[in-house]
């Protein structure tokens, strides 16, 4: 098992070197493309984003996203015991119509009113996570085994520092309990996507393909 983690970490570093901040402009092997379920053209066009964490890579393909928002409620039903798209750690509801904001060229830009592309936004599981660094009580911490950035709700004081710190707007304060929430890479969103626009690819599989 330990060897597996070491291998995983190596693969992650290799992968990050290869894909950098994204997949655009990267030539991927056919087996890697098959794993990510996209073509080279799709990877090059920037429509496929990857979110690596210590367990797996979350692949988001905006050509396949149909804006159904099932990912959002799967997330909160799984993690918060209620259905609350606002609180979800993956967000399509705010950008599926026009992209993040309405531009003058909205009829040809992203979103349902334009070119149909929808890019659900989610946690990047940052190495030097701003949310983790901003938390005054250390409620956000890396899981010792997987290093996924988790949140200890007992410690959380609901100050909102993580909300302000995150450049992607991901953590939110739950209005029902006053605590912060964040993505813990549970995969519920992936299980809820009817078009496999979200895909989990395990590091072992990537190692084989690299």
């Amino acid at each position, binding site marked *: 098992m330990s060897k597996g983690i070491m291998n995983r970490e190596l693969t992650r570093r290799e992968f990050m070197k290869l894909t950098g901040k994204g997949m655009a402009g990267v030539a991927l092997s056919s087996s890697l493309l098959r794993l990510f379920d996209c*073509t080279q053209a799709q990877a090059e066009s920037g429509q496929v984003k990857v979110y690596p964490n210590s367990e797996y890579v979350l692949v988001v393909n905006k050509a396949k996203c149909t804006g159904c928002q099932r990912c959002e409620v799967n997330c909160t039903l799984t993690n918060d015991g209620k*259905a609350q798209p606002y609180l979800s750690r993956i967000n399509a509801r705010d950008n599926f119509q026009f992209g993040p*904001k309405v531009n003058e060229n909205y009829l040809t830009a992203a979103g*349902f009113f334009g070119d149909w592309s929808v890019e659900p936004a989610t946690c990047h599981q940052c190495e030097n996570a701003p949310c983790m660094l901003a938390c005054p009580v250390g409620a956000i911490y890396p899981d010792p085994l997987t290093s996924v950035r988790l949140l200890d709700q007992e410690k959380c004081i609901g100050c909102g520092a993580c909300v302000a710190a995150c450049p992607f707007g991901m953590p939110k304060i739950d209005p029902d309990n006053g605590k912060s929430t964040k993505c813990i890479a549970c995969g519920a969103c992936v299980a809820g996507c009817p*078009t496999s626009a979200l895909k989990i690819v395990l590091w072992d599989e990537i190692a084989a393909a690299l």
Partner: protein
Amino acid sequence: MNGWTGKLLRVNLTTGQSAVESSEKYFDYIGGKGMANRIIYEEVPNGTEPTAPESKIVMAIGPNTGTNAPCSGRTTLAFLSPFTKYNAIVDAHVGGDTAVMLKGCGFDAMIIEGAAANPVYIKVIEDEVTVEDATDLWGKTTTETTAALCEKHGAGVNVMSIGQAGENLLNLSCVISGVAHSAGGGIGKLFGSKKLKAIALYGKKATQVADAKRLLELNNYIMSDLMGANNNHVVPTVPQSWAQYSNKSTRWTGHPGLTWGAAEGGPIDTGESAPGQPTLMGYRTQKAVFDHGPVAEKYTVKMVGCTSCPIRCYGGVNVPMLEGVTPNTTHANTCIGNRPYVGLLKNYQDVHDEGDGRMTAGVYSAILADDYGLWDNYGELNATLNYFINNGLMEKIMTPEQYAEIDWTKRETGDMTFIKDILERVVSGTHPLSTLAQGAYYVDQQYHDILGDDYLNSSAMTLWGLIGAKRHHGNECAAQVGMLTNIIYNRDGMCHTIVNITGSGLPYEIQRNIVEEHFGEGCLDKPKNYTRMNEAKARFAKFGVVRQVLHDSFTLCNWVWPMTFSPRKERGYKGDLSAEAKLMSAVTGKEWTAEELDFAAERVIQLHRAMTVKSVGSRDMRNLHDVIPEYAYTTEPDVPVFTEGTVKMEKEDWQLALSMFYQQFGWDEQGAPTRETLEKFGLADVADDLAAANLL
């Protein structure tokens, strides 16, 4: 509180004030249609003009809305019909994002009353409710309105708006939510009469559920084991390796080699999406190809649809041939909505491939119609326009100058701009063509001297009844069973419970055996091979509407639900008719059975029927409301009734069908609810009300 929010929002457009009230007293009516109908019953006096300030619009959702139950993103709006005889209670249903957003705002319902002096929009952004000036928006298309309000309030805001059709008070006008989801029934006219241009919603609240884990498991079970494709067709159109059967007429069009041809980055193959794969089921329904033909494959970007729905029945296309012709080249809709006025042309001008002319004209007409907020009464407006053209009646309703202004030759040459020439005059509200958008009943009222009796009774119109509502669906899908479902309503029936069964794609024997288990021998005829009415058919027809009303109250999409069948051969293709009750139990924390839920839905039907009786002003529903047009009896004249090859009905048999159907609901021989029945459903006050009006 689980499921429901327990609150409703009342907005008065005369005063501009709003109030939050409890919705709990309406829970016996479930929510959605039930809640909305009850509120209209209590607050809008019988005989109120639909467009009067005292007339109200109630928008409502149910305990199941927002829970991620598959296909739970539906909102029901109840109001008095402006376009059918008797102006009785009707519901419109709209998908998109509205339902989940209304829940997110914390409301089970919104009551809109009064009328503004100047154009306004209702803004509900989190906890702030205001009535805002919409003068700048008046005259804008629904697309422009949505973009303007999202620019102002946030890109994720859900906007429902009217276009010119509603502003100009056409009966056949709708409200458009988001990109192309429509609430019809003439509600655009009510919005317009209240000077209500739009509603903008954005909320962050939760839908609380009793057992989230159970709900997640249930949702997965429904999607893995019970759901097929659009209309819950459980058999694919082409043979596939995992399937025993295939049936070319179903909507499970996805298969290897059929793609979303214009997808970003290259075509995406719809492939084989066998049962048990919820993460692929969104590829089963390639609706652009189904509606526009094979030529649409390469213009299909992706399928879209309502929030929470894994079926994705809206075919999103990008048609470059519309560059410079329409404001945008992309559109999505489904069924008639994809090609509402393509039938106005007699030919089509193909550009690159055979069939792309018809597709382009279809998308063109859809963009126009949705931007105008023009409703078509399930194809009736197109049929009426054609009826007037084909029977030489256009010249009789216009001046020679007005007639000469229109280039009628475009119809023959297939110049699609003919559609705009017609529709822009229709939506103006001031041209004689506008009078053809009143709904068939009022068109007949105005032009009976030149229409005669043929128009309302004609197979060219295929109405379900003489109150002016379109057949959607009826005898063409399931004999008396299909036709009976319509009489409950004061608009097109839209009951998909039955047609989903007949169109499922399964072999007849399998379908028959499964439904006969529920309703008895003889309930399901072979296609176009009908038999006389029987009790089993009456039970089947009742089930059809009870479930539909349950879905419209719960909410769920009746275009997919109930789960009568399953695509799984391991289940013998049997579905699970207790799935709704299981959802209700997981959400509310109280155990419900299917019978209990159906009983609550039937309560809503009993109320709705009583309200209709009041509007008709007579108990004689049999002769004043439940009358089907002549074409139903005369279609396929060379084929005798109840033999193979015809869908015709027979007059005596129809009267027997009505009698049996009335009995199922506990109504008298005239089709009116009795005191005993009303009291059984806890509607003693409604019985008293009817009695006071001599209608009991």
